[in-house]
């Protein structure tokens, strides 16, 4: 299951959704959907849980949601901002599995 790395943090302020890299200092402005996906990456929700949740909240089809989800997950695994806690080798293997 996906989990946010402890070197990053998420924040929603008045009008922005942000992802912070607390080591390099990089700031990423997210859209609401990406923010929601990342908020659900808590190491407890399965990919299916996350997809179901966002299709409901954002009124999207499962295909649309899958596309967004996979695209985002790929980028974040690459940057090591999330990892798969089922997978001992973390992000790398998960990415290959996709």
């Amino acid at each position: 299951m996906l989990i946010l790395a402890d070197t990053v943090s998420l924040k929603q302020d008045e009008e922005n959704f942000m992802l912070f890299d607390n080591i390099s200092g990089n700031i990423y402005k997210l859209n609401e959907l990406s923010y929601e996906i990342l908020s659900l990456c808590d190491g407890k929700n399965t990919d299916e849980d996350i997809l179901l949740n966002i299709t409901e909240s954002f009124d999207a089809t499962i295909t649309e949601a899958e596309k967004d989800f996979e695209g985002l997950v790929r980028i974040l695994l690459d940057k090591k901002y999330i990892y798969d806690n089922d997978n001992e080798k973390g992000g790398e293997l998960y990415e290959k599995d996709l």
Partner: protein
Amino acid sequence: MDGYNDKKNINKDFYVQWHFIDSCNLRCVHCYQNDYNHKTLDLNILKDIFLKLDEAMAKWKMKCFVSLTGGEPFLKPEGLFYLMDMIESSDNFKNIAILTNGTLIDNTLIKKIKNYKKLAEVQVSLDGHDEESHDGVRGEGTFLKTINSIKMLKNSGIKTAVMFTLHKKNIGSASNMPRLAALLNIDALTVERMTAMSDIERDEFFIEASDLKNVYFDVYASAKTEFKNKNTKLSVSRPLWNLIDENAGGYCPAGLSSLCILHDGALLPCRRLYLPLGNILTDGLFKVWYNSDILWKLRKRNGENGCAGCSHADKCGGCKAISYYYNRDLNSKDPQCWI
């Protein structure tokens, strides 16, 4: 997903008040300092703090305006110059100010600080318009020493400012400060309220809103007269001054574009707001700046604080430190606001 590192801030100023030394030669009655006796200065710690700060400014593409202070910065000139050398050679730092009590300055030190191109000003604390009122706050003999230092600084061509920390004990001096500032021909005078941090301090130092209103009006009127045809300015960029002049005042920068660093790397939103946020050496600046709940509270501006609906809110918003210590709520209305 865009990486953007706050593009809107590019080349904007970030203000840091760095208390690189906690020792002081004076014992002022209103001082925020608790411990005066930490005598050693670890240059490696200063360097590590500088590097973290430098890294953050580079990442945010902001330019740091740093005020170096203490304690008393001229108590350890070697530390002061060590920092100034590093700051001078970094493109991420724009200006340096030195905040001092002015009792330890001599011509040798002045000659040395004059060499720094980034030195924007030396700010000297004066807490009364005459010997009796100033020495009553800062200790016997300090007024004459400080006045002498101000004259030396001015004569050397260094931009020199005076900070008057206003409270109940020196309220009678406030409207006389512009006259003294004009006589000394200094560049700027700041009259800023003391933050009473405890009930005892509140009883001793706190000025009620209606009295503050009169003092601010008097100081402003006196400055208008005294500074006519002079190069001296009254600094009015802080909360509540907008009530005196619609072009004056400013929103509290704490949490938005300023930070305070103590000698050991501890971070505070502002020196008058003793709410430790973390430590720049162990936590790093990014983690603290991005995650501190206190800082996020300070960033709440729209309709979520005690000033909601006030027409002055954009250029005022009250002093967060004074509000916090009075009401235990950062976003409550400034207790010295008179409207």
